[in-house]
């Protein structure tokens, strides 16, 4: 069934058992991103230790795809440097733009390659990118904050 390529078991597992959910009391930056077409919402806290992403926590509400994606992303990016994270985010963005033609690089994306199936559903690509766009925004703000620009 075509639907099964969208709703992979690991996606629904993250949806039911989200990782890193619950906002940290302190943060280098906090961002809120909303999917304006459906109302899905993610609040993401990032803690930076120089170049290292020491902690990513989030709160949000939304569909299985958006929530599983942010859960998996926080798993994947915690403990990485900003440079490493940028490579992973780029790889994920390219996968989501592939319209089902790419299987994704498991060496870079690990479990997140299951989102290859989502890329076949144009209506759901935005759901899967919600958390990742929030991360990009948060990383920029956190660096600015740490440089004392705010």
């Amino acid at each position, binding site marked *: *069934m075509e639907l099964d390529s969208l*709703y992979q078991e690991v996606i629904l597992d993250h949806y039911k058992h989200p990782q890193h959910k619950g906002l940290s009391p302190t943060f280098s930056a906090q961002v809120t991103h909303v999917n304006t077409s459906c*109302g899905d919402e993610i609040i993401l806290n990032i803690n930076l230790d120089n170049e290292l992403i020491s902690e990513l926590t989030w709160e949000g509400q939304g*569909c*299985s795809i958006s929530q599983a994606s942010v859960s998996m992303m926080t798993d994947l990016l915690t403990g990485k440097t900003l440079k490493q994270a940028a490579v992973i985010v780029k790889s994920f963005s390219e996968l989501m733009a592939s319209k089902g033609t790419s299987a994704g690089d498991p060496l870079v994306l690990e479990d997140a390659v299951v989102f290859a199936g989502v890329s076949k559903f144009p209506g*759901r690509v935005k759901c899967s990118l919600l958390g990742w766009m929030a991360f990009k925004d948060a990383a920029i703000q956190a660096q600015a904050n740490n440089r004392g620009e705010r």
Partner: protein
Amino acid sequence: MSFSAAQIRKDFPIFERTVCEGKRLVYLDNGATSQKPLSVIESESDFYRLHNAAVHRGAHQLAEEATDAYEGAREIVAAFLGAPGGADEIIFTKSATESLNLLAYAMGNAPVGNRFAVGAGDRIVVTEMEHHANLIPWQQLTARTGAELAWFKVTAESRLDLSTINDVITANTKIVSVTHQSNVLGTINPLAAIVARAHEVGAVVILDACQSVPHMSIDIKALGVDFLAFSGHKALGPTGIGVLWGHMDLLNELPPFLFGGSMIENVTMTTATWAPVPQKFEAGVPNMAQAVGLGAALNYLTNLGMDNVHAYEVALTGYLLEKMHAVPDLRIVGPANTQSRGGTLSFTIKGIHPHDIGQYLDSQGVAVRTGHHCAWPLARALSIPASTRASLYLYNDESDCDALVDAILGAQKYFGRF
């Protein structure tokens, strides 16, 4: 004549196709847009094929034919709504959204002394169940003018709370703009009390009739409102055509919104005067083929009889409501019975997000809408991030309702497996 959705469906070419690898199309997204009968598709394409010319200009036969077709559509709309002042009170816009923005901007243009002038100390009233198209134009008008925005709240029973009507529509209220039927809840609002109170304080009443005009008989005189907006594409007509109706004396006093060709009487390098209504509000070459297509759509509906359409849809809504009440963990977002309610049925399912429900339904050939349905403040008031919406129309029947409920049960099974 008995009402046969199966017979009606034969007039709509889109139902000849299948979706999702050979599945029958169960189209339940009529609140977003309706499908089109062949007569509408042909009247629109015939305009281009046979009569295309810019209306109200051009000294040639085609221009006359195009003008006749366009003005003929205006007559059809006026008759359909029961416009007391006839066709001249019908203004064609590109959408209901434009109709409502036209009013908000035109009122914002009103000079001091004009009855529509809005400023600090004035109040504009809406409801908590408005579509964004009938909320944000007024939000913005209050922001530009310093007027204050107030609104009727929605009760737990999905009705407008009119218990404080005199505190909401106050003596300083200038504009009351409300929806006739909620695009989320299906609630049909009681207008008599609102109109009476608004007129008592000298306010004008604007009706967003997008979700009512396609589904029920409308008699403007009986409604008592001062302005009415609806969109063609939800009423079997083409996209790109909307209607604004207003009382002639009000339209005469209302300043224009868009300026340009066709809407002028006399122009010098430094001044201009305006053409009579409705031309005053129709700057530029209008959406002619779409207006003609809307005329064909309203003729199609009139031939069926709007009272028949409404009675059929109420009965079908009752059938679907009963089936939905039997689904475990399903909550209807809207009135529980067919009392003063149309065929828009929003719902939530415990444990499954609306977007996931909608995706599963789509895999079964069932087309619905999910999200906040352009009524975000209502979703917030109801404390639901989003809902799934099935909206019925005259070509739907019990088999469509059965397919929806079967698919909901299937979704519960599908997402319950983990």
